[in-house]
């Protein structure tokens, strides 16, 4: 009986002690950073490069833009950037534009414009320039085909800028009706634009990378240059906010060329 009591006493003391010891045991990796000896490819570095962008889902004209991009990375995860774009294909019609022109009669009827007059009031992007704050929370490595290894990062960005809208043709005479009212008018202006999107760098080396960005430029426009609100005249009341998507691919170079290595 005494033996049993003694063993029970022993167990009562031993078990909590063992449990406490287990609780207080810490992994040697506690508080270690997730990645050690990491290449800090962005921290305090400038980034400059050039690439091409293409619009998606534009009403009348697609745009292929030459897009320079410059950024300074304040830390490894936040950067300030500016991006420009110049449209090198101002006459690249969308399929909808071609279909619409094909359905319009020439010469114009009393109700519908001729293809040439309709085209004359349709605007397109001439150039754009935006500033953006970039937030880069994700960075890592990828193995392509188990043989090519590359560093990469993902980021989101937001900012503002301007978009210049223009047309290639002069205002057609048919845009002024017999009562002297403006029934159509190409919208040519430099509009303030919101700029938001996501992007990624795929590093080719410690000092160069491919940058892919998908951005939405949000600005007021009347792409057709015709009545939108149904008041039969075309004026500032016909402007509407809209999304304009751009995909871009850039080759970027980083300065200084040497990247630091973290602990």
């Amino acid at each position, binding site marked *: 009986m*005494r*033996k049993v009591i*003694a*063993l029970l*006493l*022993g167990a009562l*003391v*031993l078990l909590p*002690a*063992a449990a*406490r*010891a287990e609780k*207080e*045991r*810490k992994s*040697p*990796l*506690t*508080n*270690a*950073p*997730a*990645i*050690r000896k*990491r290449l800090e490819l962005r921290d305090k570095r400038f980034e400059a490069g050039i690439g091409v962008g293409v619009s*998606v*889902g*534009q*009403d009348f004209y697609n745009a292929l833009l030459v897009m320079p991009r410059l950024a300074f990375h304040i830390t490894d*995860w936040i950067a300030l950037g500016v991006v420009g774009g110049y449209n090198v294909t101002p006459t690249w019609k*969308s399929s*909808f534009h071609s*279909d*619409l022109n094909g*359905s319009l009669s020439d010469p114009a*009827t009393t*109700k*519908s414009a001729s293809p040439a007059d*309709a085209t004359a009031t349709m605007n397109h992007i001439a150039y754009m320039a935006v500033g953006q704050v970039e937030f880069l*929370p*994700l*960075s*890592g*490595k*990828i*193995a*392509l*085909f*188990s043989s090519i290894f590359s560093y*990469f*990062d*993902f980021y989101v960005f937001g900012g503002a800028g301007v978009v210049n809208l223009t047309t290639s043709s002069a205002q057609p005479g048919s845009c002024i009706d017999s009562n002297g009212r403006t029934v159509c008018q190409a919208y040519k202006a430099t509009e303030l634009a919101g700029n938001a999107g996501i992007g990624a760098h795929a590093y080719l080396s410690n000092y160069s990378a491919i940058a892919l960005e998908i951005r939405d430029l949000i600005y007021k426009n009347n792409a057709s240059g*015709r009545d*939108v609100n*149904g008041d039969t005249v075309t004026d500032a009341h016909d402007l509407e906010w809209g999304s304009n*998507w751009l995909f871009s691919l850039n080759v970027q170079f980083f300065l200084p060329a040497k990247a*630091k*290595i*973290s*602990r």
Partner: protein
Amino acid sequence: MKRLALGLFVVLANLSVEQVSLAQEPEAPASDTVGGTPTPPADTGPAVGPDLDLTDLSTTPETVEAKKPTAEAAGAPRKAWDDIVVVPRKAFLKKARLELAPFTGITLNDPLIRHYSFGGDLNYYITDVLSIGLEGQYFIKELSERESLVGLQYYRVPTLNKLKYHGALVFGYVPGYGKFGLFNKYIVHWDLTASLGVGMIWTEIIPRNFGDQSFTNKNIAPHLGIGARLFVLDWLTLSLTFRDYIYVDTFEFQGRKRGEALADVITESKNSQTQLVQNIMMFFSVGFYLPPSFTYRTPR
């Protein structure tokens, strides 16, 4: 009496074991010292306790290098994790597993009509990077504001088709596998996915005149896809995918008259109003894997 003495001895022995086990934890290993300087006893020197001060992670390597001699001179031990090499295994294995992935998607490149898609993928992974599967989806259409303005601005009604269903046999490939650090605190694994599929898409014309009969097209539609997949749990993934469906579709022909026989409309449309269509779509999907767990076949 002997038994009582034995019992008391066991109790005392346990108490001493507890004290030893607690006392051992904070002690820094002697081999962790730099430059061969022995670690001072925990109660007399600046030995590092179990809670290491790693708050200053922003310190640059140059600064670290500069600080090192001082630290070494003081005989301070290195951080416990400095000498441990960690090579994480691939976080997720797919070979011989079935993936059921319901998805939702949206068309991106048509300014006049937008389609929302609801469907699913069923894939079987032959290897960790190759899969074969089936894809099926149902579409819901939405006409855009631009579509409604065409009538007001040009006195025309657009010729449009709506998407109805799509089904395909799909071959998948994983060209890239990666991991990223979230603020250098958490590691998340992901892979790149590519797919090539061939299937059938059902479309239906939207008659320009209300009341006219519509007809349905069945088009062979190959597609290409590329995407990224995040591994969340052993049986759960999240994916973002872009797919480009390419097919030749038949639209309502331009000269259709009121009351014209549908068979004639179909014939005339097939003869004069076919067009190559590209539908670029973006999908978000959640993947469920069976069996829900996997076993590594190589040692850690």
